[in-house]
């Protein structure tokens, strides 16, 4: 069950919708001449859950990793908060990254650290390395971490080691870590692909609710079309490194799915 966020939660509730994210002519080639992303043009508004669907190897992960520059785009612009993220480097890039929360398929927790330490990892962009070393995080961060643990249904787990948790619990920690950044946008790369169907639904609910409470946009790469239909306010379909569908979940037809995934026998 999903515990609703508590009232004293440190959030940006009541703020106007966040900044829109605009991708212009974004391309990525890992090897010269073999583009993975081909001239992507996309605008993510300041709120709502956008699901990116498409077959494996079509560049969904690359797209989402270009936004926070875990992958360097070959060309194009990533306009966000009045900056072109594609051109940032060094301290400016780190500063931009801390406003972008990210959730991973394999959770990517530091397994040997406790749940609390993993949550505090979300504050590494804000806290000096010296304080990190001594684990002297600001009291505000610790309070925030405790309220988030409660919000994701892991109250009382703060001293458990991450490697002692189940997949669903780990992903909740991963999401809480991203929210600890007080991000203005959340990116999630296949957050449910390693989880069972019931947990997948809970994780999607959590992502949607956290985004809605904070009025920030959530961008989710997802394989499961049903989950995308159920939780997204908007669906982007990709195939072969291009956007081939962009619209509301209600308008997504079998014909569109054929365009995205190819073939038709799988569609019953």
């Amino acid at each position, binding site marked *: 069950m999903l515990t609703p966020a508590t009232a004293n939660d440190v959030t940006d509730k009541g703020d106007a919708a966040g900044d829109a994210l605009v991708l212009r002519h974004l391309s990525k080639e890992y090897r010269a001449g073999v583009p993975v992303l081909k001239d992507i043009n996309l605008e993510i508004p300041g709120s709502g859950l956008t699901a990116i669907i498409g077959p494996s190897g079509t560049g969904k992960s690359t797209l989402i990793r270009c936004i926070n520059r*875990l992958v360097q785009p070959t060309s194009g612009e990533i306009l966000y908060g009045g900056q072109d993220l594609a051109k940032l480097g060094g301290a400016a890039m*780190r500063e931009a990254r801390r406003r972008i*929360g990210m959730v991973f398929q394999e959770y*990517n927790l*530091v397994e040997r650290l406790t749940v609390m330490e993993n949550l505090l990892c979300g504050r590494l962009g804000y806290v000096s390395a010296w304080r990190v070393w001594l684990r002297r995080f600001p009291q505000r961060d610790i309070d925030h971490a405790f309220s988030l643990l409660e919000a994701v249904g892991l109250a009382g787990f703060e001293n458990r080691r991450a490697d002692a948790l189940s997949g669903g619990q780990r992903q909740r920690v991963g999401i809480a870590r*991203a929210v600890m950044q007080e991000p203005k946008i959340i990116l999630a790369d296949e957050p449910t692909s390693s989880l069972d169907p019931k947990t997948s639904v809970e994780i999607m609910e959590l992502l949607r609710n956290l985004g809605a409470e904070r009025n920030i946009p959530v961008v989710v790469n997802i394989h499961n079309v049903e989950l995308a239909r159920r939780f997204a306010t908007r669906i982007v379909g990709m195939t072969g490194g291009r956007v081939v569908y962009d619209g509301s979940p209600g308008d997504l037809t079998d014909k569109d799915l054929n365009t995205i995934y190819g073939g038709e026998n799988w569609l019953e």
Partner: protein
Amino acid sequence: MTVTEALHHDWQRFTLAQKLSRYAFYLASVAALVISLRTIEVIPEFLYDAPTQMADLITRMWPLDWTYLQPTLTALIETLHIATVGTFLAVLMAVPIGLLAARNVTPSAPINLFAKFVFVTSRSVNSLIWALLFVAVFGPGPLAGTMAIAFRSIGFTGKLFAEALEEANMGSIEALTASGASRFSTLLMGYWPQARPAFWSIALFRWDINIRESAVLGLVGAGGIGVALETAMSLLYWDQVAVVLLAIFAVVVLAEIIVTTVRTRLI
């Protein structure tokens, strides 16, 4: 044709070329053994004589000269100090160089190569040779021994620490990078927690080796129990030599026990 026949495929683990090269390797090993047996030139007189010589040595060692225990223990403490301080200094120097050697922490091939060059230099020189060098620098005594142990150990501890860092799960590192963490914070919260058990294990293991290595450093005047051994041996006081050997044996066993106990608690 039946279905089973249609499904029949040949599969072999090695290709013909792989098989031939494996047989060639076996053949070369046997040839090497035969050739070396022919050229080893064992002098039979020495072999026939060996039991008598050993018996003679043992009778000279017995009874043990317990009056020599006092200077032996003093020297033993010095040996423990040489090994411990030497390991500490080695680890202190090995950690920064290990960070430079790990390809994921320092993604620069020339720097990795430089760090690995330092490790190879440290490892390729035997601790007795390092000791001779430092005896020339600091004069005879435990300081030379400590430095010899430290410089000899940099390569071992640094190389293994770098390998432990390279085995870190890069997903966790990616997540910390994505949160805007600085490189130093990523080291503290990403790499270090993952490499920490290996680090302590390596340091303890090297300390264990260094206890044994520092026991012989005295042979070249670099302090420790080796000095007591060297003195007794050159005076042909075999009953005293036996006391020293027994002490070394006891401390090596003790170190082994300590290392095993601490390691099981750490990991």
